[in-house]
């Protein structure tokens, strides 16, 4: 029905990857494609969540013959404990990212490496938190806010400050369910404590804590990470960029940033644009310096500076395989340890920067907030000097590149909506124009599509396949993380062409609002932006979040963070669709709690839907959206 000709297809992306794998063969490098083969089949106990190695009496594996562990814990307790630990790992990780941002905020100073780029936002949050702002120096305020924010991690009493941003109905549900998150670290500790040998084995209690720990991430650590990154680096607004491996430039020094924390990549971007550095690169035979990104640190700098996106999670080895990557600079999370040995097969410098992510075969340049400028400059310089070490015979940058418009923070979305409001009838600064599109049926609903890549799913095929289906059905997409990059790489964020893939309703919305149909909201930490958007929609419409025709989806997820995200999205009232099972199929009881009609749905009005058949997952999502419309009579 639609002309998809200008999209980059999965097949084309695979062909590009295959041409890079030839490079790998030439130099005898190991790649994830090979390691997946080596690891297959996966351990059945692990996959179903029925292996317990929490104490040294085991490991215990549950079978028909051996239905309980040595301590007597049944399969439901074991699966539930594993699920909670899975969540806690993700929650701790996201939240620690947020904590790093708060520490950086504490280091901001006038003229320093880190400054306040969005003082209005800082003041707005300060007022929200009841902090006096009048007559205060912006940096004094920033430091005060940093301390208050850091206390959210360990405060002895009370719940997370940002919970007040949720609609009252949602807050009431959380209170009634006993899942209002307290101090962030406490929820992780509680999770670890509950799952220690000899503590909780009651699935209901374990799942409740999973939701609470997840919420401490989404409405706590992640939200602080997002909000205060905006304060320091600027709140994203629409910006045009490019995506896919072809963004790397053959004649330039290529620096690839990878990881999650924008504090590092912001500095690299700054120094790569330094005329002194560019001149230095030219003096060594390059035409210039190209910074591109992989994973969420890429999303961060794309959203704020239009830095091109070379690829997502499973493309991280590809950038090195081009033979044209002078340095891959990483901070934290989702970094393959494989990059160390792989970089040794090429001239590429693999530079680790965080004590959190130390790896063999890397050069470690520890990034300190006080010396960030010098550190970044040293890294850029190292990359430039490495340009001459390229083996030209190995250079292969597949010519794949798409245009993308990114940068849709909630603030930017509201601005877009103001643009279609009518000053004679509407108030500005609300989500009402979007709600009107939905209630009238012009848009059928929205899908928040997020998450990683996972070799269990043909890379990007689920993201892109589902998105195409949604677009045809007038369902708008808000995306983040590696899902966002999949869309960008395929061309679904092209501000001109992508609307042609939509049904008449979504197409019209794109034309009138000047947006692509897939809105890039940021990195995985920025899923907190989606929570705020959902809350605003609920408050502006008076309809509980769970009744809005909005669903969440992570079709190719793989990390612990994704499990934490799933928990807080679903606990916020948004039905969440997963294309990969979260190691819970070993317990019917746990699966029912998460996915059944009368589990978490009774507490938070939403549940998980897991289906590894992507077509069937797609149909279920659309049916869910239409059912919600039906219930609302729209």
């Amino acid at each position, binding site marked *: 029905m639609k002309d998809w000709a200008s999209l980059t297809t999965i097949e084309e992306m695979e062909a590009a990857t295959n041409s890079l794998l030839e490079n790998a063969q030439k130099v005898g490098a190991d790649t994830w494609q090979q390691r997946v083969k080596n690891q297959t089949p996966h351990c059945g106990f692990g996959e179903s969540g029925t292996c317990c190695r929490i104490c040294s009496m085991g490991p215990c594996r549950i079978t028909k013959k051996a239905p309980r562990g040595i301590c007597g814990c049944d399969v439901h307790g074991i699966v539930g404990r594993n699920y909670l630990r899975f969540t806690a790992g993700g929650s701790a990780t996201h939240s620690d990212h947020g904590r790093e941002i708060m520490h950086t905020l504490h280091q901001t100073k006038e003229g320093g490496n880190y400054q306040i780029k969005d003082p209005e936002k800082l003041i707005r949050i300060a007022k929200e938190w009841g902090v006096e702002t009048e007559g205060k120096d912006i940096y004094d305020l920033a430091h005060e806010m940093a301390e208050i924010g850091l206390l959210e991690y360990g405060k002895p009493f009370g719940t997370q400050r940002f919970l007040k941003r949720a609609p009252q109905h949602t807050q009431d549900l959380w209170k009634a369910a006993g899942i209002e998150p307290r101090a962030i670290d406490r929820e992780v500790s509680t999770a670890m404590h509950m799952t220690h040998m000899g503590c909780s084995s009651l699935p209901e209690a374990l799942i409740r804590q999973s939701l609470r720990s997840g919420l401490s991430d989404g409405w706590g650590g992640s939200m602080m990470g997002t909000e205060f990154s905006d304060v320091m680096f600027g709140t994203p607004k629409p910006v045009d960029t490019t995506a896919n491996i072809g963004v790397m430039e053959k004649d330039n020094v290529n620096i690839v940033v990878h990881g999650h924390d924008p504090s590092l990549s912001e500095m690299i971007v700054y120094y790569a644009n330094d005329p002194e550095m560019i001149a230095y690169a030219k003096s060594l035979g390059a035409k210039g310096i190209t910074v591109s990104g992989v994973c969420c640190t890429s999303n961060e700098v794309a959203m704020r500076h239009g830095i091109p996106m070379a690829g997502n999670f499973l493309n991280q080895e590809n950038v090195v395989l081009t033979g044209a990557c002078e340095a891959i600079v990483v901070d934290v999370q989702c970094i393959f340890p494989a990059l160390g040995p792989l970089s040794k097969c090429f001239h590429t410098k693999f530079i680790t920067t965080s004590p959190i992510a130390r790896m063999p075969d890397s050069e470690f340049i520890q990034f300190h907030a006080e010396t960030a400028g010098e550190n970044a400059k040293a890294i850029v310089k190292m990359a430039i000097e490495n340009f001459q070490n390229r083996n030209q015979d190995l250079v292969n940058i597949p010519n794949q590149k798409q245009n993308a418009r990114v940068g849709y923070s909630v603030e930017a979305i509201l601005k877009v*909506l103001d643009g*279609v*409001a*009518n*000053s*004679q*009838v*509407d108030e500005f600064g609300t989500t009402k*124009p979007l709600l*009107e*599109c939905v*209630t*009238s*049926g*012009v848009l*059928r609903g929205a899908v928040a599509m997020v998450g990683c890549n996972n070799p269990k799913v043909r890379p990007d095929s689920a993201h892109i396949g589902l998105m195409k289906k949604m677009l045809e*059905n*007038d369902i708008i997409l808000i995306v983040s993380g590696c899902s966002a990059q999949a869309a960008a790489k395929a061309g679904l964020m092209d501000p001109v062409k992508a609307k042609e893939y939509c*049904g*008449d*309703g979504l197409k*019209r919305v794109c*034309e*009138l609002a000047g947006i692509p149909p897939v809105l890039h909201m940021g990195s995985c930490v920025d899923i907190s932006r989606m929570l705020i958007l959902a809350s605003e929609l609920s408050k502006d419409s008076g309809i509980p979040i769970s009744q809005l025709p909005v669903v969440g989806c992570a079709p190719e997820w793989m990390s612990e963070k994704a499990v934490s995200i799933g928990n807080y999205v679903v606990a916020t009232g948004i039905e969440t669709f997963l294309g990969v099972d979260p190691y819970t199929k070993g317990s019917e009881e746990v699966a029912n709690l998460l996915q059944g009609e009368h589990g978490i749905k009774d507490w938070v009005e939403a549940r998980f839907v897991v289906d590894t058949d992507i077509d069937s997952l797609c149909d279920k999502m659309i049916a869910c959206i*239409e059912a919600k419309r039906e219930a609302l*009579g*729209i």
Partner: protein
Amino acid sequence: MTLFDRVFGGNDAVYGLTEAAIDNAIAQYGESQAVSFPETAYALPCYYAVTGVKVTNLGELKAALGVVKTLMTREKRLHDAFMSGVATALCAEFIEVLKYMNGATPYEAPCYGHISDAFVRNLGVPLVTGDIPGVAVILGTAPSADEAVELVKSYQTQGMLVTLVGGVIDQLAEKNYKTGDNVRVVPLGKDVTSVIHVVSVALRAALIFGNITPGDAGNLMKYTMERVPAFVNAFAPLDDVIVACGAGAIALGFPVITNETENIFRVPKSLIVQTDVSKWNPTSLEARDIKIKITKIDIPVSFASAFEGEIIRRGDMQVEVDGSRVDCFELVQTKEAAEVEDHKIEVVGPEIDEIPVGSKISLSYTVEVAGKAMQPDFESVMERKIHSWLNCIEGVMHTGQRDMIRIRISKADFEAGFKFRHIGEVLYAKIKSEFEAVVDKCQVRIIVDAEQNAKLRAAANEVFDKRDARLASMTDESVDTYYTCIMCQAFSPSHVCIVTPERLGLCGAVSWLDAKATKELDPAGPCQPIVKEGCTDEKLGRFETVDEAVQKYSHGALEHVTLYSLFQDPMTSCGCFECICGVEPVSMGVVITCREHAGMTPLGMSFSEMASMTGGGVQTPGFMGHGKHFIASHKFIAAEGGPGRIVWMPKMLKDQMRERLDKTALEMYGVENFTDMIADETICTEDPEQLLNYLSEVGHPVLSMEPFEM
């Protein structure tokens, strides 16, 4: 009920009515009974535009209804609602065309019903120049007649074209409010289906100006959305049928503004609920992104292009400036900066209130301008605009030019406090706003004194004579620069006019001097200079630089254009041409007809039908749009033998062109009274044999010319 349910319901209802009406008509007249709208070359224009199929009789109409049914899908998607809206509109067109069967005239004044192709073509230039900033479609009955008048007037004073459907027509009549296309308020009809007559205008605009292929519904809707600045104002109550029609309007990109609050859904920029009717004007303009150029002029009556066509009858007249009986004139003159006091308005002689009602008076006005970039060549460009400016004053009518002007000022204006001084205010304001790039200072002197005017008129005529001499000496050979004009690209994206001294723009509104002035006023604007270089064929008028300009400004759509040939890469047309010429194969001559002439030509085609052969920026050898004044030029189809090829023109056009055309023919062919040798509708209409007989009878020069090299 969801919004889509209402659209589907309304669509089903209209479909049912249409089916019954067609079946009844077939039962009564049979399937071969012809159906058509008058004065259009586009059959049932909406159905033709959407499907590419021309319906001519009841049998085909019935088949067409079957096609319409296929649009009426019922998925819960906007696509289905849009298509059902379009289907509703097409049904309305079918119902309306049945009213016109057997030459019936179903609409009586003040209602217009179906609108002619000529009317659509006339809209081209004013729409692209922003002279008509938008088209309002007002539907239903206002809460009160006063509110109806206020709303219509609010658009009218902005120069918008207002079309009316339903009860609002009677409300205006009740208040004796003047309507008609001359004041840009066009009542269509009282049935809701008559709204199709304005939709038909929008869709024909896409075919005529946009070169949209009939049947290419996707690009058709893209064109109307991006380029036709229309919107709908629909009064409550809205029934499902109106909601379905609204879906059709929104599909075309036209937002609907309503005061209905019951059972309605809001859609940003598309379906807007504004309960306060007094705010419909700003709400609508914002919804359709229409910007009004504001010229605030300090006069006691309205000033808007909508009043341009207003006629002041003798009985309504306070005074008349009558250049045919007494000494009158209008003149623009360039002065040194020191000689001009900016915004000085001087009235010498009695003011209007010192003159008895009904007088015919001697009056002149001289506009003196100074500016660093001012050139005397621009004087006549400004002077030609005075006609339009004075007509834009509500209650003032201006005709003629130079020393043959006639101005009527109405009693209503007099009562409102309008003075001669206000004519000066209008001239000052318009000169300063439209020519701000070249005019730094401007003053106006109005003289109401027969004695003084007699002397001044003689002096003015000397100025006019000098200008004429300069114009006459200006040929395509005597200048080194031509100009592009791409003003119409807002509407006709690949058309480029090449304007030379002897070939004015095909709309008749842009002479070489106008283009030169436009370049000065707006350096990056629509008129860009082409340095005349690289002549590769003098006879055809083929220049390398012209080709380069055409390629550049048509964005690659055109490769080559000649200036003087009808067959070899003829110049393209946007759609708003004054005249069109086409080859008459029997006599080996050309037939010219003009927009004002609705009748047939010996080609068996009317203006509309000939016009539909070209336009939208495409080259159609053998057919070419052009301005009236090109006809009398030595360069008119010079490659094929020049104006001596003209064998037929409407009488009215002959009379307009006679003097200059006779002169040209005398110079070129040594033929006296050439215009009389050209046939017109009083001599023959459709029969080429009859035409040939006449040409032989009068010894027309075409008979001795070589056949065309086609």
